[in-house]
């Protein structure tokens, strides 16, 4: 029922009339608003949160290996905060070796996704120089780039 082109004044008048009608019919409490008390007490009907009970499925002496794995998992979830364990697990590969591997890995996988032109550039470098591929690339790429830059057509 909102009509376009109504002046703001006429709109206000309409609203006021509506409010008047409503307030006469509406029932409202004459009581001041109760202050919302922020309660510090939570009611809880389960014993689980009060007493820190362990998980209900258990298996002993290897009767059911899956349940035994579960036991360790569930009980450690509850007690994570209390137990301070070493986060560092025994690594099969040392950190330095990992860094070295990763360095070369990036190069080899990177080659796979180069475009054809860049791959040709790589091949030329490999034939010329025996150095690491990355260094070769960095030397020739700027020159290649300089050649391939957009040449503005002269009007």
């Amino acid at each position, binding site marked *: 029922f909102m009509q376009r082109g109504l002046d703001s004044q006429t709109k206000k008048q309409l609203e006021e009339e509506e409010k008047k009608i409503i307030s006469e019919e509406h029932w409202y409490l004459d009581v001041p608003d109760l202050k919302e008390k922020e309660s510090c007490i939570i009611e809880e009907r389960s014993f689980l949160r009060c007493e820190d*009970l362990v998980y209900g499925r258990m298996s002993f002496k290897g009767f059911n290996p899956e349940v035994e794995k579960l036991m360790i998992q569930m009980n450690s979830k509850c007690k994570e905060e209390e137990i301070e364990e070493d986060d560092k697990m025994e690594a099969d590969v040392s950190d330095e070796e990992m860094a070295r591997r990763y360095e070369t890995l990036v190069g080899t996988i990177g080659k796979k996704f180069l475009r054809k032109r860049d791959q040709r550039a790589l091949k030329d470098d490999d034939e010329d120089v025996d150095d690491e591929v990355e260094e070769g690339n960095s030397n020739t790429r700027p020159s290649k780039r300089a050649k391939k830059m957009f040449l503005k057509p002269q009007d």
Partner: protein
Amino acid sequence: MAAERGTAADSLVGQVVLPGDLLLLPAHYDEDAEGERLRLSAGAAPQGRLLCGPGLRRSGAGLLVTTCGLLRHRPGGGGAYWVDSQQKRYVPVKGDHVIGIVTVKAGDVFRLDVGGSEPASLSYLAFEGATKRNRPNVQVGDLIYGQFVVANKDMEPEMVCIDSSGKSSGMGIIGQDGFLFKVSLGLIRKLLAPKCEIIQELSQLYPFELVIGMNGRIWVKAKTVQQTLIIVNILEACEYMTAEQRKQALAKLSGN
């Protein structure tokens, strides 16, 4: 009813309380303006909120006791008070893991008997990896370990066999064989307490598997029928045996 003056909750920890007792909490939890002033001056108020556990109800000035038992208190994590009472009849509570027996298979929903006033309902989609085409193989009379999702006095309780992340984490149909029996709820809580002596001593005897439901039902499975029955008898008798009697009984068994 005459309003009684309450007693401080701290003084009654570990003692018997009766329904109708009013417990006053320390000034930290007072909601009046005076309480606020006290809170500021009393130094560190406990962080977090107080947990008012089973057997207690919040009422105006403090906590009202609704069941008879021993009052317990846990100071960690904001503090918690609850009443440790003995019961045989289970009342479904949201979040509890229970063992249910399938009684009716009605279309898409199973009805389980959990020992409460009403049978609980379990939808066939509430299992891990269940879809409309891939239905779980549940028959009438099967045992199911699940948790309550809805459990209040106005509605029929509902159970599921997956947790909030969609994994079953040990819930679902309990396998073949084994023995199901009923104990009181107090013993269940004793058995599920961290570092329970009974469980530790039993685990030294034979390899066996145990599922404990909060509704008072325990399912045991061991290699032979005789071993299973021995474990069942020990668990049932544990309620009324003292620690020495239990150790004697177990020593006799492990000697045999």
